Structure formats: structure tokens, C-alpha cells
């Protein structure tokens, strides 16, 4: 009896303890879930956008814009949004031919020293103020002074006259064939003088990133730095834009693989990539299109830059030997799956000034060895000749590091030992190469539509500027090349311009201050709902007036 009672008591007690233990265990779980529900309750994320997705183009990019005003900052990050926010005097066609935009017509004087623009009537800024010739003149002067390529874009411009509200007269010291390109969307945004012409310098103006007052087909609705930019269509734009999406969302996703997965899943409508593995993978996805044209204006090149003052690569025969030793066929067809074209010139293949008769430096190890012997770099007992250091830009580390490893293996075949030096971040690499603390570096450089803007800066003697990134970092100087670039920049006609650039290309591909390796293929990737994607010469860096969303 006692035993039975005790057993009952014990079992009751144990059961209670057991329940108590279970509840002890469950309590933190339940509390955590409750806390999580409460926490989740407050939360559309800081970047969440409440509303409807109807007629919205969601563009994904990894490029984070520092400012949205292309008058003071170059590059893909700023121009993607900047060209939607600001209109320009000219637009470029698929064939890089000028088309009317804010300027409905233009005339060039016979001597090429004066360009007159006639502005369209009825164009307004986003605050309702009319766009006048004063604003165009102001914008041109700001770009000339503040833009990184200002001197290249508008160097010959001596003054801008505004005889009336719709007429702009640009006076120049010499003929300037690149002027119309320089007035196109990535380079010359028309900004309102009454906003940006205040006491603040335009570079530091607070309305470069927030509360932007633009002249383009979209106005800024919100900008969450580093995450998202929301643009809303301007209803009374001076050009037809009925079919254009009501909203454009620029969604920033820094990891390109995640961006590609989000596009594949349909979370993103459109993205741009130059990564061969992503282009080839997404090309096979149903419901997605990888454009086969676009971004020809960029002229994006990957090259091996030499510091010609560095001991082991100062002799052009050594640089030529390195060119012969590199296996481009492997780089193009194996490493990059045939998604990239080889580069043979400092001017990109898509440019009208590209010369296709240049040496291609196909792999020839015997020729490379002979050139090295002739240059005095004979082999030692182990077959080694010398050691050279190779840097690469960490912003494109995924592509560049694999190219660097290929070069290292290729040069080993001719007795050159390559020591690859990676940089922790962009400033570290920039500091090294801009201060000439390097032998060779892999670099990605854009031609920017015209050799005046993006090519000559790498070779002109007076652009050897220590500490300045993407100036003449090779320290290469050849008066003949200088003379040819200057002659081409003011050539009287296209034929003589092409001929002059061809001569410059021949010298440069012989002396090789840089060894062009690849023409990068930037391409838009978009879902079936995107019609007339912006596959023009500057791609998404041009207004999306003709693009529409369907379905």
C-alpha cells in the first residue's frame, strides 16, 4: 500500500517535473518565436518598396553610384541612373551616329570651329522650369571643369554663346570631331543652372545624390544609398514616352552570382554582365534573352599594362616576347568559353577607328625565346631568365586572377617567372600602379566611344602624372604617337582621322606599352517581359525611352 502510494506519488511528481522540464525547454523556444514575430512585425526592410509592380522595370546592378549626376562623375554606376534623370543635346544611334535629343538640329561651320545647336521648344526640368540655352552652356562648362574627362571632351571649346533661349553656339580653337559624341548622354547631362549654379561647387552639391532636379525622361522618387534607386516617368516629357515603363527600379546587388540567380528566378527584369560564365549560363535559361549586341560605345578592353621604366620590361623585345608567349587561344576559347573576342589594338574592335591589319601575336614560343635572347635575357641552368611581378585590379578579381594564373603558366614556358601580387582592395592596387610601383598589371579600360576620350590618355607624354589612376601609367612617351593623336583629334574628315589613328595603332602594337588581350563583351540580359531593351552603343547608360514592359 505504502509502496503503491509512494510509487503513485513519485510518478505524479515525476510527471509534473517532466512537464516542468519540457516547459522549461519550450519556454525559450516559444519566447524566441514570439520575439521573432514581434521583430518581423516591424519590418518591411529599409529598402522595401510598398506598392504595385505594374509597369515597372527592375534593373539589377552591382555598381553602387556615389552620385547620380554624370556631369561630375563618370562610370557605369552613375551613368545608369544619370542618363535617365538628365537629357543631353544629342543621342547616339546604334551606329554611333548623332540623333536629335534636346537639340532638334545642329550645324557645323565650314572651318569646324563653331557648332550651333537649336534646342527643342517646350522641354522642362523636373521642377517645371524651362530648359534654355543658358542651361546647356552652364552644363558644358561644368563638365569641362569638373568631369574626369572634361579636358578631353571639351578641351578645344573656348566659349559658349547663347544668342537666344533656344540657340547655343559653341566656339572652339580648332576642329573637334569628337564634339557630338561628347554631347551625348553619358557625357553631357543638361543640368539646371538655377539649382546647380549656386554658391556650392557642383562637385559637392547635395542635390547630386538626393532631390535631384533633372531634365530627363525619369525623375528621382527615392534613393537609398547602396541599395536602391526608384525613378518615376515624367508625364509631360518633350519626347514621346507613352510606352516607356512607369517606374524604373535600380536594385543594387553587389554579388554578381546572386544577381544572376535573381534574374534567372525572375526577381530582376534586366541586368548587364561582361562575365563569360554568367553570359553563357543565362543564355541557356528559358524566358531570358542575352543580347547579342550592345555597349559598342564602351570599347571595354582587358590588357596587360607594362611599366616601361621597370628594369625587366623596359625593352620592347621583352614585351613582344611576352606577347608571343601568352596563349590567347586558351584565354578566349577555354578560360572564357568563347564569350570574349581577342583584342589586337588599343582601340576596341567595335570602334570605327579600329585597324584590323595589326599583328596578332599568335603564340610562338621559339620567337619569344629568340627575342628574349636578343634582349640579353638568356636562360640559367634551371632554364630561368628573370622574375617579373604581375598585379591585377581587385575589383575584377574573379576574371583577372584566372588570367594572371594563365599568364604565369605561359611565361614559365619561356623561362620568365611571374610573381602574382594581389591587392586587398582597389586603393591598394591604385596606389601601386599610379605610383609606378609595378612591373606588369592586368587592367580593364574603356575607350568611351571616341579615342579622344578614352584612348589617347594612356599614351600621351604630357599625361604621365604620378599618383593619378588611368593617366599614362606605363610612363610611355613617343613624340610620333603624340603628334598622331593630336592630328587625329582635329582631323578635317573621317577618312584622314581613321588613317592617322591606324598609324598610331601600328606604332603602339609594335612598342607595346600595353598588350591588349581581350575585348570585353558587355551585354544586357533580360526577361521576356522586357521589350526593346536598351541594346544601343551605351546600353543602359542611355535613356530607356523605347523600352516597354509587357505581360
Amino acid at each position, binding site marked *: 500500500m505504502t509502496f503503491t502510494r509512494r510509487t503513485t506519488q*513519485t510518478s505524479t511528481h*515525476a*510527471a509534473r*517535473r*517532466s512537464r*516542468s*522540464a*519540457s516547459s*522549461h*525547454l519550450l519556454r*525559450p523556444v516559444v519566447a*524566441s518565436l514570439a520575439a521573432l*514575430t514581434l*521583430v*518581423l512585425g516591424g*519590418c*518591411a*526592410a*529599409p*529598402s*522595401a*518598396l*510598398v506598392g*504595385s*509592380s505594374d509597369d*515597372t522595370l*527592375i534593373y539589377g546592378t552591382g555598381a553602387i553610384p*556615389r552620385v547620380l549626376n554624370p556631369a561630375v*562623375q563618370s562610370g557605369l*554606376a552613375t551613368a545608369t541612373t544619370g542618363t535617365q534623370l538628365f537629357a543631353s543635346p544629342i543621342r547616339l544611334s546604334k551606329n554611333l551616329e548623332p540623333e536629335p535629343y534636346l537639340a532638334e538640329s545642329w550645324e557645323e561651320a565650314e572651318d569646324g570651329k563653331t557648332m550651333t545647336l537649336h534646342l527643342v521648344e517646350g522641354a522642362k526640368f523636373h521642377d517645371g522650369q524651362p530648359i534654355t540655352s543658358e542651361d546647356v552652356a552652364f552644363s558644358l562648362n561644368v563638365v569641362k571643369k569638373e568631369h*574626369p*574627362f572634361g*579636358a578631353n571632351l571639351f578641351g578645344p571649346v573656348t566659349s559658349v554663346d547663347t544668342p537666344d533661349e533656344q540657340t547655343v553656339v559653341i566656339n572652339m580653337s580648332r576642329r573637334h570631331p569628337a564634339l557630338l559624341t561628347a554631347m551625348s548622354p553619358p557625357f553631357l547631362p543638361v543640368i539646371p543652372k538655377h539649382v546647380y549654379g549656386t554658391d556650392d561647387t557642383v562637385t*559637392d552639391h547635395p542635390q547630386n*545624390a538626393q532631390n535631384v532636379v533633372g531634365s530627363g525622361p525619369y525623375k528621382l522618387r527615392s534613393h*537609398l*544609398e547602396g541599395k*536602391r534607386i526608384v525613378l518615376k516617368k515624367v508625364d509631360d516629357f518633350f519626347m514621346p514616352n507613352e510606352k516607356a515603363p512607369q517606374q524604373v*527600379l535600380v536594385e543594387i546587388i*553587389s554579388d554578381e552570382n*546572386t*544577381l544572376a540567380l*535573381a534574374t534567372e528566378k525572375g*526577381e530582376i527584369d534586366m541586368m548587364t554582365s561582361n562575365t563569360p560564365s554568367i553570359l553563357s549560363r543565362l543564355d541557356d535559361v528559358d524566358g531570358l534573352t542575352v543580347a547579342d549586341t550592345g555597349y559598342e560605345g564602351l570599347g571595354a578592353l582587358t590588357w596587360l599594362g607594362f611599366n616601361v621604366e621597370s628594369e625587366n620590361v623596359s625593352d620592347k623585345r621583352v614585351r613582344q616576347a611576352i606577347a608571343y608567349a601568352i596563349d590567347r587561344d586558351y584565354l578566349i576559347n577555354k578560360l572564357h568559353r568563347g564569350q570574349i573576342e581577342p583584342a589586337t589594338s588599343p582601340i576596341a574592335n567595335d570602334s570605327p577607328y579600329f585597324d584590323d591589319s595589326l599583328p596578332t601575336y599568335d603564340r610562338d614560343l621559339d620567337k619569344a625565346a629568340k627575342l628574349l635572347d636578343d634582349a640579353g635575357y638568356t636562360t640559367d641552368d634551371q632554364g630561368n631568365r628573370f622574375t617579373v611581378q604581375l598585379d591585377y585590379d581587385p575589383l575584377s578579381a574573379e576574371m583577372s586572377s584566372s588570367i594572371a594564373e594563365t599568364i604565369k603558366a605561359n611565361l614559365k614556358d619561356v623561362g620568365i617567372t611571374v610573381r602574382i601580387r594581389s591587392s*586587398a*582592395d*582597389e*586603393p*591598394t*592596387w*591604385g*596606389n601601386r600602379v*599610379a605610383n609606378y610601383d609595378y612591373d606588369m598589371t592586368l587592367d580593364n579600360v574603356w575607350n*568611351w566611344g571616341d579615342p579622344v576620350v578614352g584612348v589617347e*590618355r594612356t599614351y600621351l607624354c604630357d599625361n604621365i602624372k604620378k*599618383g*593619378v*589612376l*588611368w*593617366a599614362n601609367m606605363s610612363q610611355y612617351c613617343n613624340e610620333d604617337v603624340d603628334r598622331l593623336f593630336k592630328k587625329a583629334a582635329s582631323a578635317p574628315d573621317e577618312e584622314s582621322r581613321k588613317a592617322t589613328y591606324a598609324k598610331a595603332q601600328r606604332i603602339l602594337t609594335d612598342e607595346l606599352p600595353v598588350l591588349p588581350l581581350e575585348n570585353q563583351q558587355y551585354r544586357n540580359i533580360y526577361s521576356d517581359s522586357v521589350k526593346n531593351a536598351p541594346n544601343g552603343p551605351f546600353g543602359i547608360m542611355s535613356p530607356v525611352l523605347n523600352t516597354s514592359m509587357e505581360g
Partner: protein
Amino acid sequence: MSLTAPPKIKLKGRRNMALARARSIASRIAQAVLLLLAVIIFNFVLIHLAPGDPATVIAGESGGTTPEQLETIREAYGLNDPIFIQLWHYLVKIFQFDLGYSFYFGQDVTALIGERLYPTVLLAGTGMFAGLILGTLLGVIAAIKPKGLLSYFVTVIALVGFAAPVFWTSVLLLLALSITLPLFPVQGMNSIIVSPDAIPQIWDTTLHLVLPATALALIYVALYSRTARTSMLDVLDSDYIRTAWAKGLGGKVVIFKHALRNAVLPIITLFGLHVGALLSSVVLIEVVFNWPGLGSLLLESILRRDTPVILGILLASSVLVIIANLVTDVAYRIIDPRIAISGGPQ
């Protein structure tokens, strides 16, 4: 008289103990402040000793610049001042609770961190607690039958969790549960455009949270399951557990009330320590899942040498670590009263 004496002694003893505790807390706070100061100075000097500066990045992303423009940028951000002057200016600002202005994002650093803190706390909190609870449970279950199948399973999970890099498990999770089986979204903390109603918003955030929190939790499941298993095996071998079994107590009571309570102490120590290392895992997960938190902001800032943001995040992280350590101390005292009596873990 003799009857009233003991309470007075007890009271005096309690007062002394309270005083000692107050002194101990004050001393800990003073140590924390000094530690923070040292961290701030160390971080500042370390970052500024690295070659290059944000002006190079700003110029670099433009595709070039002129020496004059570079000089203007450096002047505007005070980068031409000697490092001691820059440090002094920074310390003065810190004491005014001003973390400075981001070179790159052009925004107040406090506001920038404030925007990104909440998503990180949500992700880190969910991932860590899920890992803690699941890992401990698995460890306990494995310890009950150390030679059982489940025990080996826990060992395998722990090895995989330790060995697999978090960015790799993250990408695998994405490919498996977002692309192949389209159960969860790929990126972000919310859908790009969300419903204005609260319930769909909560559901939307929960769906977005599952994969990154799982990726984070896997690390901690591995860690805590091994620790819990080892610790439980030690405790289950104790005399008092044998006594508990002998008394006829139920299995749940012995395991969860008697054994786990003692076995959990090393786990709590680890938990406190891991808060400090949390940011390194969170950085990778936030980048892969495009989670809009402090980790991805830190990476963007490091790549662009945005010094004020890097320093601000490191400061916030240091404060979190110090708080976590204090909380760990308190948790110790609650779980094991002997520690409270003896004055805390040494």
C-alpha cells in the same frame, strides 16, 4: 541579544557583497571604456597606415581624374592632414557621438549604420539562436546514446558544418531551395515590391529570412552540437546524475533539468565568445543573399576604403561584443548560483 545578532551579521555581509558587486560592475565598465578607446585608436591607425586612400577610389571609378581633382577630394575629406590630427578630430567627434560622414555614400555614418543595424540583428539573432537551440538539442540527444546512429549523424553534421565555407553552403542552399525547388526567394530581406498590409509583409520577410538564417545556423549547429554532446557525456557520468536515476526520476527530468542545466555552461561561454566573431560570418552571408545589413555595408566600405563607415561598424561591433560578454556573465550567475556566490567566473 544572541537571537538578534546573526541577522545583523547577515545584513552587513549582504551590504558588503552589494558593495563589492557595485565595485566590480564599475570596474568592468571602466575596463570596457578603456578597451573601446584602445579599439578605436588601433582601428584608426591600422586603416590609415594602409596604402592608398578613398580619393583613389573616387577617381578610379570615374575612369581617371586630374591631379587637381584628386587634391580637391583629399582636401575636402581632410586626408592631407597628418594622421595624429586626423585621429584627434575623429576622437573629438566620437565623444560627441558623431561617427562622421561617409566618403562614398555621402551620408551620415550614424544614419547609415542605423538603417543597416536592424536587418543584421534580425539575421544574426535568428541564425545564432536557431543554431544554439538546435545544436544543443542534437548534442543532448546524441549524448544519451553515444554509440547510436544519431550520435554519428551529429558528428558528421558537425564536421561538415566546420569544414564547409559559409559562402559555399549559402550558394548551395540558393541553388537547391531557390532555383531547383523554387521555395524561397534568392535575395534581399523583402520582395522588391511588397504589399502594404502587415501580415503579407511579415510572411514575405520570413520567407526571405529562412535561407540566410539557415546558412548561419548551420555553423552554430555544428559547433554547439559537438560541445553539448561532450559536455553532456561528462555530466551524465556524474554521481548526482546516478543518484537522480536511482531516485527513480523520469528521463526527461534527469536529462533536461539536472544534466543539461550543468552541461549548458560551456555552451553559454562559447555563445558569448561567438558574438564577437559573428560579423565575419554575417558579412559573407549578407553578400551572397544581398541582405541589406551591416555586413554587406562593411564589405562595400572596405573595398572602397570608406574609413568613417569601417570605423563606425567596427565600433558598433566592439560595443556589441562588450555587451555580449556582460550578458554572458549575468547568464552564468542566473544558471549557476554558485558563481554568483563565489563572485563570478575567473
